[in-house]
C-alpha cells in the first residue's frame, strides 16, 4: 500500500505540469504557411506558438467573419480550470498520503480517478462547445462567405482531436505536453488503485 500511495502522489502531482505546459495544441498549415501558424491552449489562456501567431490567425479569420481568439480574461474557464486542477492535484496528494499511512483504502484512488475523468469530460465538452461557437458563429458581414453544398454556411470549427482540412488550411488538433502529463498522471492513479487492490487482496 505504501508503494501505491507513492504512485498516487506522483500521479496527482503530474497534473501540475499543466501550469507550465500547454494542455492542447492546434496547428494551421497552408501552402502560404510552410511554417504553420499555431495556438497552444493552456489552462490559463491561449498563446501563439510563435510570437505573432494569434494576431496572424485573427488577421486571416477576419475574412471569413470569425471572432478573435479570446483573451484569458474573456473566458471564465481560464480562471476556473487552474483552480480545479490545483484542487484535484492537492486532493490526489492528500489521498495518496493518507493511503500511504493506511488511513484510507485504495478505493479512494479510483474515486479520485472517476471524479477527475468526469471533470475532464466536462472540460472537453465545454471546450468543444467553444470550438463550435468559434467556428460557426460568424459575422454576417464577413468578406468571404462559404456555404456547404446544401446551402448552409460552412463551419470553421477546428477538430476537437485529429486532422481536418478547412478551406486551404490543414488543421491538426492534438494534446500537448501538459495534456500528456495529465493523462500519464491519471493512468498512474489507476495503477495505484490496481497495486493497492492487489496488496489488500494478498493480506
Amino acid at each position, binding site marked *: 500500500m505504501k508503494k501505491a500511495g507513492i504512485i498516487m502522489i506522483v500521479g496527482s502531482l503530474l497534473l501540475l505540469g499543466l501550469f507550465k505546459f500547454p494542455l492542447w495544441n492546434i496547428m494551421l498549415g497552408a501552402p502560404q504557411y510552410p511554417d504553420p501558424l499555431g495556438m497552444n491552449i493552456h489552462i490559463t489562456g491561449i498563446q501563439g506558438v510563435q*510570437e*505573432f501567431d494569434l*494576431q*496572424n490567425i485573427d*488577421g486571416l479569420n477576419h*475574412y471569413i467573419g470569425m471572432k478573435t481568439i479570446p483573451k484569458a480574461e474573456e473566458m471564465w474557464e481560464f480562471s476556473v480550470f487552474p483552480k480545479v486542477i490545483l484542487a484535484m492535484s492537492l486532493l490526489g496528494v492528500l489521498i495518496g498520503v493518507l493511503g500511504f499511512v493506511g488511513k484510507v483504502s485504495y478505493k479512494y484512488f479510483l474515486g479520485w480517478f472517476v471524479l477527475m475523468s468526469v471533470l475532464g469530460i466536462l472540460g472537453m465538452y465545454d471546450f468543444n462547445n467553444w470550438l463550435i461557437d468559434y467556428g460557426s458563429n460568424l459575422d454576417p458581414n464577413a468578406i*468571404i462567405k462559404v456555404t456547404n453544398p446544401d446551402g448552409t454556411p460552412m463551419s470553421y470549427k477546428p477538430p476537437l482531436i485529429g486532422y481536418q482540412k478547412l478551406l486551404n488550411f490543414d488543421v491538426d488538433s492534438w494534446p500537448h505536453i501538459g495534456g500528456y502529463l495529465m493523462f500519464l498522471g491519471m493512468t498512474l492513479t489507476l495503477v495505484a488503485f490496481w497495486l493497492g487492490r492487489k496488496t489488500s487482496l494478498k493480506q
Partner: protein
Amino acid sequence: MKKIITSTIALVAILASFTSCNNSSKSSNSGALSSNNAEKVYIAPGEHDSHYAFISGGYSGNLTVYGLPSGRMFKEIPVFSQFPTNGYGYSEETKPMLETSFGPIPWDDSHHPDISQTNGELDGRWIFINGNNTPRIARVGLRSFETEEIIEIPNSAGNHSSSFITENTEYVVAGTRFSVPVPQRDMPIKDYKGNFKGALTFISVDPEHGHMDIKFQILMPGFNYDLSHPGRGKSHGWFFFTTYNTEEASTLLEVNASQNDKDFIAAINWKKIEEYVNNGGGKMMPANYAHNLMDESTHTATTTMKKEVRVVNPIDVPGAVYFLPTPKSPHGCDVDPSGEYIVGNGKLSANLTVHSFTKMLDAIEKEKFAGEAYGIPILNFEDVLAGSVEQPGLGPLHTEFDGQGNAYTTFFISSEVVKWKLGTWEVIDRKPTYYSVGHLTIPGGNSAKPFGKYMFAMNKITKDRYLPVGPEMEHSAQLYDISGEKMELLLDFPTHGEPHYAAAIPAEIIKENSLKFYKLANNKHPYKATNDEETRVERDGKNVHVYMTMIRSHFSPDNIEGVKVGDKVFFHITNLEQDFDVPHGFAVIGANNAELLIAPGQTRTLTWEPKQVGVWPFYCTDFCSALHQEMQGYIRVSAENSDTPLKWSMGEDIE
C-alpha cells in the same frame, strides 16, 4: 567558268557535310556532359542553394544576391543608387543614405564586396562594398539584407582599391585609384608629379554594431592605387596595394603610365601606423565628408557631416611602408590563405609575379633596399620574389585560392581561368571563359579558410551567350566545379549591371539569421501610427502630415479631405503586419518621386505635392491578399484659397 562554279559548289557541299558531321558528334558529346552538369546545378523547386553569392552591381551602384550553384538571383540590394522599386533614396527615411559633401548623389559605381571576418574566417555579419565614383564605403547588414551605413571618403577619387577588410574586421580599407591634390585646390594639371597624393584610408569597424569611422589616412605618393588585400595569418597587420602609373602621368595614361618596366606593390604595416596614431601621431586636417547611418528602431537614416580627418605622412613612421617592385602595371593584389604569398597580377606582363612575405621581412631586416621613392624604401625585386608562373596566359587580372594549395587566376586578354599550384608555380589546368573575364570568386576565397567546391568567373563581354536583346545587355558569370583536378564549366548565368568582384559564403552561416519582419513594438519612428487611434492628419502651415496605417487589406485613413494645391503632403505609413513576407506598397497618382514598399513593422514616408484640384486615388502596389484590389483610398485636393476643412476617416462616409 561554269566548271569552276560547279566544282566550288561540290567542294562547299563536301565541307558542309564534314562540318555538320563534326557538329553532330560534338553536340552528342556535350549533350551527355551537360546532362551530368545539369544535375550539379539543379536545385529542385522549394529547395535551397548551398551558397549565397553577393555580386557587385558595378554601374548599377547596387549589390545583387544570388544562389549557388543554381545562379538564380534572389534580390537586388540598393546601396549607392536610388531604387524606385522600393523607394530607397526617395522616401524621407532613406534619402539621407545618399547624402555626400557634393549633395545628394543618386548613383555610384559599386565594385568590391567583402564579407566581415573573425579570425580570418567569414562570419557573415556584414558585407562591405565601395562606391568608386564619389568615394564611399557602404555596410550592408546580413540580417536585414539592407544598406545600414555609408561613409564618404575625403581626399580620395576613384575609390577602387576598396573595400577589403582585415582578418578580424578591425578595418575596412579604401584606397584611391586617382591621386588628387590634397587638400583639393585650384592648380595646373601638368604640375601633377610630386604634388598629387594618393590617400589610403583605414576605417575602423565597431565590433558590436559595425559602425564605421575613419581612423587615419596615409597620404602616399601620387600613384594610382588599383587594388588591395589584407595580410592574414603570419602577415596579419600588413596590407598590400598594387600601384600603376608610378610614372605619375596625368594625360594619355594608356601610353604614359605603361612605360616603367615595374610598378610597385605597396606593403603597409598598418599595426605600426595604428600604434603611431594611438600615441597621437599624424595630424587632424580639415575635411568635409558625410557619414550616413540607418537606425533600425526609427527606420530612419541620418547624415552627419564630419569636419576633419587624421592624416599620416608615411615617412613620419619609419618601417611602416615599403615598395615591392612588380612587373607591368599590376592590377589584382591577392594574398593566399596562409598569408605568405602576395600575387601581383601584372596585367601587361607575360608572367605572374608572386612575392614572399617571409622574404620581404628578411629583406627589410637586412635593409637591402634598391632605392626609395618619396622617402619610401624600395626593396629589390629578386629579394622578395617567391616565384613566378611562366607564360600562364595573357593579361592576368585577379587570383583566388581554394584552400588546397591551388590558385586560380583570370586572364582578360586570353579569356580564360588558369589553375596553378602555389610553391611549384606549375600550371595545372586552364579553361576558357566567355568572354574576357574580370574578377573571379571562390566562396571564402579571400580569407584564411576558403570553402572551395565552386568558382565563378565574371565576364566583361557576353555577346552571343544569350538570346540577343539589342546593343545593350547584361554581363555574365560562369560557374565552374573546382572539386576535381580539372575545372569543369557548369553554368552560365546573367548578372545585373557589371559584376566586378563578388563574395560568396556557405548559406548556413547566414540564412538562419535572416530577419523575417521588423517588430512593431520596437518601432520608434517619430511619425509612426501603430493602431487606428493613432491615425490622423495634421496641418503645419503648408505641410500636411498623414499618420497612416496599412494592414490586409486597407489603409487607415483611406478618405482624406482638406488638402490644397501648393501643400506638401507627407504620407507617413506604418505597416501593421507582423508576419513574414507581407509587405504593402503605396503609390499616389502624380507623385514625382517613386512608390513605397513597406516591410511589416516598418514606417516609411512619401512626399507628395499636389498640383491639381481633384479627388485623387492612392493604392497598394504589392498584391497582398485576396482583397488587394480593394486596398485603395482617395485624397481630395481643393484650390489653394479654399476653406475645405481637414478631415479623415476609414470605414465610414467622411462628414
